[in-house]
Each structure stands twice: as structure tokens, then as C-alpha cells.
């Protein structure tokens, strides 16, 4: 149960930060900005070694938000660079996140084919 509570807290905090970014910044922050910001921000934090502790503590609470996607990208690239050099750095990110990207594209296509927007 503690695992679930921890996931709730860390996930909630990450989302609340996103909400504050949208509501309190003077710019017009769109969902696109938030998603891109979280992925790149997560990747940078991950590279600095600051994101892994969040995952160790909060489990899926830190990987379900898009910053977790950024973390996977960064770790993939780092792994790739260690094992295969420059080519690994190039391909490692996508390799580590390939399942998620493929799932998003395929499910997107399927849903768009079979459903109709309600408006």
C-alpha cells in the first residue's frame, strides 16, 4: 500500500507543478508546451542524476508523467553511448522508448479509425 501512496504523492506533485506552470506564467502555455517541457526537462534531470531518486522513491509515480519518458530517453542514450559509442547515443533514446512510441502511434491510428469526435 505504501508503494501506491508514494506513487500518488510524487505523481500528484509532478502534475501540480505543471498546473502552476500553466496558471501562473504570463505566457500562453499550451498542452504541447507542457508535454515538450516535461520530456526535455525530465531528460536533463535524468542526465544530472536527479531523476532516478524520484523513481526509486515513487515508482510509477515518477515514470507515468512525461518526465519519466524523458528519463527513459536520456538513460537509453547514455547506455547506448557507453556500449556502442556515437551510434549508441543516436539510437539509444528511441530504443529505450520504442514500446511507448509504437503503442501511442498504433492506438492513435486504431482509435481515430473506429471512433468519431463527439465535439
Amino acid at each position, binding site marked *: 500500500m505504501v508503494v501506491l501512496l508514494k506513487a500518488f504523492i510524487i505523481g500528484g506533485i509532478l502534475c501540480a507543478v505543471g498546473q502552476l506552470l*500553466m496558471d501562473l506564467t504570463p505566457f*500562453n502555455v*499550451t*498542452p504541447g508546451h507542457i508535454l515538450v517541457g516535461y520530456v526535455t526537462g525530465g531528460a536533463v534531470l535524468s542526465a544530472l542524476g536527479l531523476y532516478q531518486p524520484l523513481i526509486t522513491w515513487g515508482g510509477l509515480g515518477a515514470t507515468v508523467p512525461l518526465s519519466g519518458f524523458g528519463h527513459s530517453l536520456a538513460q537509453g542514450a547514455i547506455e547506448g553511448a557507453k556500449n556502442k559509442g556515437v551510434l549508441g547515443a543516436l539510437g539509444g533514446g528511441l530504443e529505450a522508448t520504442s514500446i511507448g512510441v509504437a503503442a501511442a502511434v498504433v492506438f492513435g491510428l486504431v482509435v481515430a479509425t473506429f471512433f468519431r*469526435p*463527439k*465535439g
Partner: protein
Amino acid sequence: MPEKKIGNQTLQFNSKPKLLSWSSIVGPMEGKGPLGKHFDLVLKDNLLEGDTSWEKTEQKMMQHSMEIALEKIKLQAGDLDFYLAGDLLNQIMNANFTARFLGISFLGLYGACSTLTEGLSLAGMLIDGGFAKQVGVSASSHYDTAERQLRYPTEMGVQRPMTAQWTVTGAGSYIVGKADSGIQLTHATIGKVKDMGVSNANDMGTAMAPAALDTIKAHLQDLGRSMSDYDIIITGDLGVLGTTVLKELFHKEGYPTDNISDCGLLIYGPDQDSHSGGSGCGCSSVVLNYLLGQMLNKKARRILLVGTGALLSPVTSWQGESIPCIAHGVVLEYYG
């Protein structure tokens, strides 16, 4: 001096063209609103049966509203000398398709939410100038077609800010012509484009208020009238925030604001979660139907309808440009 122009921006129609007929079609949400029973037709869904796109539905709404307006006074499309229409879609495609169906001389209009008053002003000019006997005017908007063109896809889980207005799903049509009695079109005031640097597509009320201020002031000045000469001065559509801003601007200059109202405030109830009220070409087009009904019931004798348009393009919006705005006013009187 031109004979029919008074002051800087106001036109006087000496032959007093009349509104011969009108009609309105709205979507389900507008039908549930406080004015629901004043509209000719309320759709059950935002998509008409058998249509594959919202654009098709919006086009049919415009076309059907014109057909109803014609049928009410037993006219045919061919009896109209001109058709003036516009909407919010890129290249005003709904108006173009409707004009194709009607098969009469057509002038396409784009003035965003000011399209209706732009059309009525031009109709007045055509008739008063002796160029036409009867002119049809239509304007329409549709929440889903506007939203996906100007903002986000409708299924995207975004939070609309409190300043955002809800685009009305609705179409209104009017037939202006010569008659002995009826509601008459006496004046029109053609506005100037005003831009106060607002670039937020979710805050069009604040963007449009200065345009409305400018047009109303010019109108009163040109005719030497005051606010109290009108039973109601109704803007379409500044929404909740825009109306507050407009009143504030008038207060600053020492005008009374008691009889200022807004179409965007009337169309939805407070429980309908529209945030800052209604907007879109369709809003003033259908609310005017209700206002004309009120006039026939002698609840108001002289009104000034000021259509306010946020001339918003998705292209320049993404490029960070501000929103130029315009407002045109028309005076309607009924002494029957």
C-alpha cells in the same frame, strides 16, 4: 459632402428599409439556454443526421435558416436581389456553399462576430441606394468547426481559461427590403479596426472592447444622440469580461452604462459553464431574432446592435501577432 453620410462614420437610410423576415437555427446547448424557446429550430445534436463533418452541418444550418426566413413570407430565393453572408471558417466556405445553393448574386463577408451587422449595413445601403428591392443576409458559426480551426481539437483535454468565450452553434438569416410597416433599419455606423495588442485567443472580450467603444462613441457623436436615446445598446459579443471592460472604459469617459448589454451574456445561462459567455457570428445572429421579437412585443422601440468582430487568423495567431478588432453598429426602430 456625401448626402447620406452623417458625421464621420454614420450612414442614414432615408428610405427606411424594413426587416421583412428572419429566422434562427441553433445547436443543442443554445437550445437549453434561457433564449431556447425563441429560436425557430433547435438541433438535437451538433451534427445533423447523415453528415460526416461539422462543417457540412454548419453549412446546412445557414442554408436552412435562409430557407425558413424566405418561406415565412412566401418568397423564393430568386426574389432576392443579393445575398450577403459570412462565417468563421477559412475562406468563409459555409457562406460560399450556401450561396451556391441559393443561386443569387452573392457578396461574401468576413467580419468575424461583426458579420451580421456588416451584412445588415450593406443591405441597407443596397436598398437605400436603389440597387435592390430585397436582400438576404446570413451569418453562422459552429462551436466545433471554430474550435478546431482556431484553438485545439475538441477532444483534447485542455482547460479553457475563465476569460474564454464559447463559440455559439447557430445560424441566423434576415431579409431586408421595402415595406410600409415593420421594424426599420435607420442608421448604420461603420467601425474602424482597433488593436490594443491583445494576442490571447482565449481573451477576445478584452481585445474587442475598444472597437465597440470607438464605434458607439462615433455613432452617438455623429447623430448627436446619447445613450438614453436607445432602449438598449447591445454588443455582440463581448462576453462577460469584455462587457465589464467596455463599461469600465465608458465610465472613465463619463458615459452612463445602464442600457448596455451583450448578446454573449444573454444566450447562455450561468449554469452552462460557458465561462465568459457566447461568441461567434452565430451569437448575435440568433440573439437578434429574440430582440426583434421583443421589439414586436413593444418591449423596446429603438435599439443599437453593435457587432464586434475579433479578426483572428490561426496563422498570425501562431506567429504571435495581436488580434485586430472591428465593430459595426446598426439602429433598428419599431413604432408599429
